[in-house]
């Protein structure tokens, strides 16, 4: 069965995924809105950057994050100057890494949802005296609700499942950066297959249930 360390890893994983999902919804919504509605030439470039984590090996992503946040990297310089210290191998560092890693899984469904709304409801709202901000909150957001549910589910599930990036920038610090996927790896290395089974099986079932709920109750939006 699961021991205290396993439970610590599960708790840490859920905390990480929750924080990352909330931050990504907050940061990703304006980016997705901009991507959905802009006619700027920068759209393709920004869109490509957002999609990069989909195709890059996590080790490549983790390597650059490590270098950037390390003592000689620009983010490392900044955090040291601010007196925060260095981020790699800390929980905040893990959050930042996960934000980058899970970004496309949140932004792309939101962008699709905003694009699917089209121009018309926004124009209608304007003719009904709603200001652009009012329209965003009371027309665009409610109409994009299926996109938000998809984005939150995928962002959460994907953050739970990350491994490579965590290993590169988080290492394996109990209670700080040792998430479930790393814990499973540890069990397997130590030939503790029974405990690995419990954790791995748990994640399999959880992920399946999350996606099942998503596809059952949010069928209007195709998950890409």
């Amino acid at each position: 069965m699961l021991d205290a360390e396993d439970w610590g890893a599960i708790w840490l994983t859920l905390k990480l995924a929750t924080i990352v999902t909330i931050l990504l919804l907050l940061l990703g919504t304006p980016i997705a809105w901009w991507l959905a509605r802009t006619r700027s030439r920068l759209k393709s470039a920004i869109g490509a950057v957002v999609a990069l984590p989909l195709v890059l090996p996590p080790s490549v992503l983790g390597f650059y994050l490590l270098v950037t946040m390390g003592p000689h990297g620009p983010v490392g310089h900044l955090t040291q100057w601010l007196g925060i210290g260095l981020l790699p191998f800390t929980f905040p560092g893990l959050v930042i890494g996960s934000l980058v890693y899970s970004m496309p899984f949140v932004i792309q469904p939101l962008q699709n949802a905003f694009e699917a709304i089209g121009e018309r409801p926004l124009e209608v709202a304007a003719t009904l005296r709603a200001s652009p901000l009012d329209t965003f909150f009371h027309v665009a957001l409610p109409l994009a609700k299926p996109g938000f549910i998809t984005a939150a589910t995928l962002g959460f599930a994907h953050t739970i499942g990350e491994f490579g990036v965590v290993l590169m920038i988080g290492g394996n610090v109990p209670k700080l950066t040792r998430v479930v996927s790393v814990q499973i790896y540890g069990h397997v290395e130590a030939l503790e297959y029974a405990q690995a089974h419990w954790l791995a099986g748990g994640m399999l079932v959880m992920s399946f249930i999350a996606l099942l709920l998503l596809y059952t109750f949010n069928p209007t939006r195709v998950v890409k």
Partner: protein
Amino acid sequence: MITLRFDVARKGFAMNVALALPGRGVTALFGHSGSGKTTLLRAVAGLERHRNGYLEVNGALWQDDARGVFVPTHQRALGYVFQEASLFSHLSVRGNLDFVLKRTGNNSAALFDHVLALLGIEHLLARRTTDLSGGERQRVAIARALLTRPAILLMDEPLAALDGKRKEEVLPYLERIHAELDIPMLYVSHAAEEVARLADHVVLLDNGNVLASGPAADTLARLDLSMGLADDAGALVEGVVTAVDAAYGLLQLEAAGGSVYVAHEPLALGTRLRLRILARDVSLSLQRPVDSSVLNQLQATVAALWPAHTPAHVIVKLDAGGTAMLARITRRSCDALALEQGKPVWAQVKAAALLSIK
């Protein structure tokens, strides 16, 4: 008074419009698709911004590029009805109407009830928008626009997405709005029938140009021809019911050019009716015909001769006591009768379609 001027320059389309339109009643913007009528309406709403624009609606200045004035759409006192019903799908019918009330700070129950009754949608309040028929959806959209207490109502082909039966379901409501509310309307349409029924003033647009702008009856007579609708060309005649001949199922109307019979069930004396008389249903003779089966014979003078859509025909514009009428006759007959401007004739009207009851 509505004064507007826009210069539209888009890929493959240019429009330079300057119009002064009446500040009351229904003004139809009429033309083929691609004539620029919807562009013009969107410019009035501020949904599109075009160069060198000027727009004043009954004293409210909404755009004057010379002085850098451009009032955004949500600050313009307008109601807009889109071609396809554009109800918010995340709200119920009631929610759609409340959306307006919350933003206009207008909680007059009397207005709310009046608008609901006017459009006959009281029983739909609790429904989801997806459960409504096309006609019901459009009536809710119109009610929602009216609840903004607009200084002007803009309608972009509100019936075009409906089939014939649904059109008939919504048209009477538009006529009621016209009759009961004192809100000027700009009504975009490519359907001559709707324009003939609703419009007081007609602007004819073609490929970005204003071909004509004037009172409905005059303009429609001209406009049918220029629209290439020669086969359906016709004129509007308004009259008042002066007698009911129930035995023969006829109404007698007093119109500007004389008295006219229409086949119709009895109506109250004094009712105002609008008729459409097609040019092909009017024939001409120099003397008053006797022993003719045609009931309606009006005295008129030839106002103009226009080429018809076939070389064999001529369209004769008539002046029947101040009302414009059209007759389509063969060029051969025209020459035989030696028709020319100012010549008195008798017009025989074989059929008149009743358009609307005012």
